[in-house]
């Protein structure tokens, strides 16, 4: 699960990470008082930041033509003016795709005097199943480019999960970032706090880019997280009720939300051939084989081990809400799942949705003979496939290019 920047900063602050003075605003009415508070707090600038679950906001463009999802205002008036241009409008960035995302929340932040920009992240290293802290002096830029062009600029410190992060490790990272004096210790403390946020919240990744050395109004310098991105392990949400509440349904595709209500795992893609499959690996392979024969998959859909009549019908309805869908391929390998149960579910779903587009069904496994009989006797015009390849070829052919 992803959360917004302002929520990520709230979590980080909870664990003692320095973040700028900032206030979220969900409507224009909230913007003025928030901007005033920030201006009064001694900041000469008010930064207005669009909150969406995607990066590249600064360089993005709104569909209205307004440029920039992150703007620096020199007055409260200007901040409100920017907010008016952003709230409720759709922002398109390199990461949102052409459809963009509607901005429903803004984050108003005190402008900071940035002296240096670093990169800091915590994630799981799948190669050794250890938490990994990555830091780089090349902050504020595309870290993947840094990794490619100058990998030596990325410092890595693995954490032993039996021990947790040791202070000396945090100091190694502070040293790698070139921090000195008071900043050295402040930086080490921040790294430790960021790691604790990652561990305690069951995060998949905590990314701070940029992590900054900023000059405070009194001339002193400190280390602060100016932007933050946190994604959470879905499997652990059950033990974080407060984080569950941070879920933003507006950032999720409506069909995917609908599917999850029926314990269906659904991801919408761009193509015209919808799939309904049991098992994630088989579902991915089904998408692949459709493409292999020249078709384009419209979705990933794993009905899992259940697939009751209700779930199959719900799955059909969700599939059919996608206007791009011109044909459906059902590929089921009934292990413990009974092929006849699925067949009965398919017949009911076709009737209930008044299905008009071509349907190809491939059943294999447990009780397949009865399942095929149910389909044959249903009176429905559907096409049966013998193997995965046969079924995929048939659906691609019948849908056409």
């Amino acid at each position, binding site marked *: 699960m992803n959360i917004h920047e302002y929520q990520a900063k709230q979590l980080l602050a909870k664990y003692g990470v320095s973040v700028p003075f900032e206030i979220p605003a969900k409507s224009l009415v909230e913007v003025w008082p928030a901007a005033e508070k920030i201006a009064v707090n001694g900041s000469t600038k008010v930064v207005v930041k669009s909150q969406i679950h995607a990066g590249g906001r600064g360089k993005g463009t709104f569909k209205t033509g307004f440029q920039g999802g992150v703007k620096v205002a020199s007055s409260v008036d200007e901040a409100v003016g920017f907010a008016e241009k952003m709230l409720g409008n759709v922002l398109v960035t390199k990461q949102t795709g052409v459809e963009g995302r509607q901005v429903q929340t803004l984050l108003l932040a005190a402008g900071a005097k940035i002296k240096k920009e670093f990169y800091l992240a915590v994630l*799981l290293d799948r190669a050794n199943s250890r938490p990994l802290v990555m830091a780089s002096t090349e902050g504020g830029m595309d870290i993947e480019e840094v990794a490619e062009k100058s990998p030596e600029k990325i410092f890595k410190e693995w954490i032993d999960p039996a021990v947790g992060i040791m202070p000396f490790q945090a100091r190694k990272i502070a040293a790698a970032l070139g921090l000195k004096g008071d900043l050295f210790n402040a930086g080490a403390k921040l790294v430790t706090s960021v790691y604790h946020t990652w*561990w305690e919240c069951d995060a998949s990744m905590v990314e701070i880019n940029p992590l900054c050395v900023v000059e405070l109004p009194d001339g002193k310098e400190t280390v602060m997280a100016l932007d933050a991105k946190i994604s959470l392990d879905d*499997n652990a949400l059950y033990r974080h009720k407060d984080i569950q509440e941070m879920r933003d349904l507006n950032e999720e595709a409506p069909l995917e939300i609908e599917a999850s209500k029926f314990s269906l795992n659904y991801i919408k893609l761009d193509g015209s051939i919808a799939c309904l499959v049991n098992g994630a*690996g*088989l579902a991915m*392979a089904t998408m*692949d084989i459709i493409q292999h024969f020249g078709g384009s998959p419209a979705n990933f859909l794993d009905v899992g081990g259940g697939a009751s009549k209700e779930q199959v019908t719900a799955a059909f309805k969700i599939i059919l809400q996608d206007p791009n869908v011109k044909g459906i391929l059902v590929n089921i390998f009934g292990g413990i799942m009974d092929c006849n149960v699925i067949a009965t579910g398919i017949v009911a779903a076709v009737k209930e949705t008044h299905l008009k587009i071509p349907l190809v069904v491939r059943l*294999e*496994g447990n009780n397949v003979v009865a399942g095929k009989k149910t389909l044959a006797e249903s009176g429905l015009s559907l096409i049966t496939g013998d193997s995965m390849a046969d079924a995929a070829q048939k659906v691609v052919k019948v849908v056409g290019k």
Partner: protein
Amino acid sequence: MSILVKPNTKLLVQGITGSFGARHAQLSMDYGTQVVAGVTPGKGGQFFEHGGKRVPIFDTVAEAVKQTGAAASAIFVPAAFAADAILEGADAGLEVVVCITEGIPVRDMVRVKRALEGNTKTRLVGPNCPGIVTPGEGKDSQGGCRIGIAPGYIHKKGNIGVVSRSGTLTYEAVWQLTSRGAGQSTCVGIGGDPVNGTSHLDVIKLFNDDPETTGIIMIGEIGGGTEEEAAEWIKKNCKKPVAGFIAGATAPPGRRMGHAGAIISGGKGTAAAKIAAFKEAGIGIAVTPSEMADTLLKMM
């Protein structure tokens, strides 16, 4: 000979009284698996009855092992408690612990894996896996050892080793082999999680050393680097023909495709990279999932 489990391996089921565990304990017993004990905390002293057999239930794995000599466990415990169940199995000295449970938090598995470091006695398979099947010699391969949720009847006793991250995609490969008269020595589902106990390579090393296994099918998917790791080793060390299939070539990056571990992130873990690694290692590549068995059999 098979690997990990033999037809007569004594199996205990953790979570035998839950509906999921009970169902699959029954199916395993029907298959001929030696289910000798169940473990459900608080239900020790009760019995699990099926097919005329009475399986004793214990409060702890240690007690179950002491009383019955069980050597392997199937874990059907809910996600919130499964990490604990795994470590209990290891603590009791089991040889194989197969965790079927899906949805275990990654942090829990990071701690489990760390706790199991250096433990040479217990092998963890999974979590989030369909389990292990060593087929038997009876009708529909009955008489074998079935740990987990795979359909027993699709198997056939033979010489092909199958290792996979997926469940139903594995059944496809197994069924293709059986339909062509090519049986299996052992089929191992390592599961779809990013942190697990056994990798593709771990299983392939066992197949390489198993006199009964003469060919190997390896089924992978996007995310992580386990297939690449295996391919590199296979190139230098594997004495037997290997064919493979990678699912997810059409999956978009950044999206988790069902399995917690099936996600392309930071450009790593793509199907293309895995297929390239297979090619480099001389692994036969099944272009479509329908050709997994044929691809291997052609090489043999």
